[in-house]
């Protein structure tokens, strides 16, 4: 019952959006898309029109449609039913209509996730970490790899962020941290920590009290040069050397751990 209501509501919404955003798919626009993605030239106009109509029926504007097909050309040849199925799956994640459009326009490869139950399962898992649907959407907008990534790898970074760096969810979801490896995260964090520029918030500290630490997005989303010179305020040479040194440290720690594990198993 609820799902039926949701579907009819979304259809109404998309028809309204259709009225607002309807733009005819001209040869000129198709030409521009082919220029951006030459592989689209092999596809006949019928497919273009059929696919365009399908997306338009779901409230997705022509401009967004063109972005989607240039980003993920196989979508154009897919049967409308298949497309609708995937769109409905994503809609059921309840990110909100506008946010959902933004998400698939930014990452057209998300339309390749055809397994609805996997999608729901993954979004539910992410919701456990990020607390709200809105935060899950932010996570996916910043780190699209989360949709496919191994949950153990996600868990490692999440644990590091919350237990070692003591960051809270709103700060985590604003950054692209899950697009980076744990090693990159650790290296940047330890660099600031050893410089004396990052102090984990005390457990007893008032959560509303602002910290002097740099924000997570500044730490992980910046280029090497701006991280070194603007965030850490040291030279790029020092940062590059630290990366080498810390890589060695991590490797040694890993070897030590492996050694300890071997000793334990020998004892057993």
């Amino acid at each position, binding site marked *: 019952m609820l799902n039926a209501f949701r579907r009819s509501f979304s259809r109404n919404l998309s028809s309204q959006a259709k009225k607002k955003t309807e733009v005819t798919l001209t040869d000129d626009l198709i030409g521009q898309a082919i220029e951006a993605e030459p592989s689209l030239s092999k596809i006949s106009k019928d497919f273009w029109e059929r696919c365009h109509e399908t997306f338009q029926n779901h409230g997705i504007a022509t401009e967004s449609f063109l972005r989607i097909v240039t980003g993920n050309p196989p979508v154009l040849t897919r049967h409308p039913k298949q497309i609708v199925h995937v769109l409905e799956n994503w809609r059921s994640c309840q990110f909100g209509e506008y946010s959902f459009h933004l998400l698939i326009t930014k990452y057209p490869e998300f339309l390749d996730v055809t397994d609805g139950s996997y999608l729901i399962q993954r979004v539910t898992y992410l919701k456990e970490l990020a607390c709200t649907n809105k935060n899950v959407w932010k996570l996916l907008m910043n780190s699209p790899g989360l949709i496919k990534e191994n949950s153990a790898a996600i868990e490692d970074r999440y644990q590091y962020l919350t*237990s*070692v760096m003591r960051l809270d969810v709103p700060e985590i979801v604003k950054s692209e941290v899950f697009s980076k490896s744990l090693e990159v995260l650790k290296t940047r964090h330890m*660099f600031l*920590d*050893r*410089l*004396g*520029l990052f*102090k*984990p918030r005390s*457990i007893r500290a008032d959560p509303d009290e602002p910290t002097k630490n740099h924000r997570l997005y500044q730490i992980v989303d910046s280029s090497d040069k701006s991280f070194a010179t603007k965030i850490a*305020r*040291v030279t790029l*040479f*020092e940062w*590059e*050397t*630290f990366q*080498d*040194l*810390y890589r*060695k*440290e991590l490797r040694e720690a890993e070897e030590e751990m492996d050694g300890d594990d071997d000793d334990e198993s020998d004892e057993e």
Partner: protein
Amino acid sequence: MLRIRKILLVTPKRWKSRKSNDNDKKTTKNHALEKMDDFYGSVFGNRWKSIRIALLSEHKYVSVINNFGDREKTTASLENAGAINIKDLISLEKEKLQKENTGLGNEKTTYKMDNVISGIIKEQETRELKSIYPESESSENEARDDLESRRIVNVEEGTGGLYEFVPATKIKGMEDWIPESDHYKYYKTTHDFPLSFELEKDFSMPENISLYTFEMGNTTDFMSPKKCSTGVLSHYLMDGASILPPLLLGPFDKGEKILDACSAPGGKSLLMLQNITPELLVCNDIQESRLKRIRKVMKEYVFDFEEKWEGKRCILSKSDARNLQDYGSYDKVLVDVPCTTDRHSLHVDDNNIFKGGRIKERLRLPEMQSEILANCVRLLKPGGSLVYSTCSLSPVQNDGVVHMGLQKAFQDHNITCTIKDLSSVIRLFTNIFKFENSQNLKYGQLVLPYLPANFGPMYFCKIVRN
């Protein structure tokens, strides 16, 4: 039943969330870091964070080729691994300096450290005063009312001690208390003894010494030392900055008598032995265990050490460097004094000088260091030279101690000295080490830890007895 299960499920989570990480633990290493943040932050300003990260990261080594082993073979394998001979780096820098035509000239330097230290002393005094009398002067009357209850009383002495007379300027139970600010007061720079400065113009690497390093920014590790055909190890790895005090003690002439006053673990002595010219090298240290370490190193690296060297050309002596009495008998003395060992103190908890129980020892280090220096100056022949060195960044233990030591040598024994200004010589090493600006140092030079050249810290000052 349900309730119990709920509690059981919840408890581990609560424990987990409250689990603190390493940063929260009040280890001696963390305590040392806090102290350094406080003091060196004021001394070095914004540059402290660069030094801090270098101190907390893995440090870099220099390899001393052992002349008693298969020298050519070791050299070839190090060069194959990409290591560079320090001799080549120095001659390159020499050429560069000659081209620039800057020469090794005199530079008028303005000295800046005095104001910084006096600021630190004032700040520390205020902090200590506040820790004893937390209220400000305006609330003095109110404070007096409950003064009695806040005065520190050693419970072990019992309440009977309270009836003893204590002057108003003292606090019962704190007779042995040394305020941290007293430690900084060891740093004095007003001259009340004759002291001259002379520019050291030239430096040449001793012929027989081969040292290898990797260029700045290269973090490659050296291969481990291997046994050579003579039974000794191929090369000795030491902190790169530690090569400077023995090298700058030169030039070494044949038949000289050399003393390494605080010798353990023996790396610097071994480097001087590679030169083979000294008639006698005395390696002194205070404890038997430390002497054992020196003997072990010598046996591992010097061919036939026990038969041909020990007790003949190399003497291991166990004595407090303050009590050595062969006055006026050495041509060269190396005084690498016990210090706060800044890098070591940030990495190892055991026997750390920043341990609560060693606070007095730490605060009185400069006094002990200056006594060692003053005594070692007396051991020099007139015209003989001495290098004082520490592996600390503290201006108190460095320039402060040189000042105190030379003052003491003059006041107690009428010995005058000349400080050799090494600011020109260190320019030959600038492509290997990062040095502190000479303007911030009064007597010596300081190698600053810097990630791409992560050596030191190492302070050294060359003194010649007049």
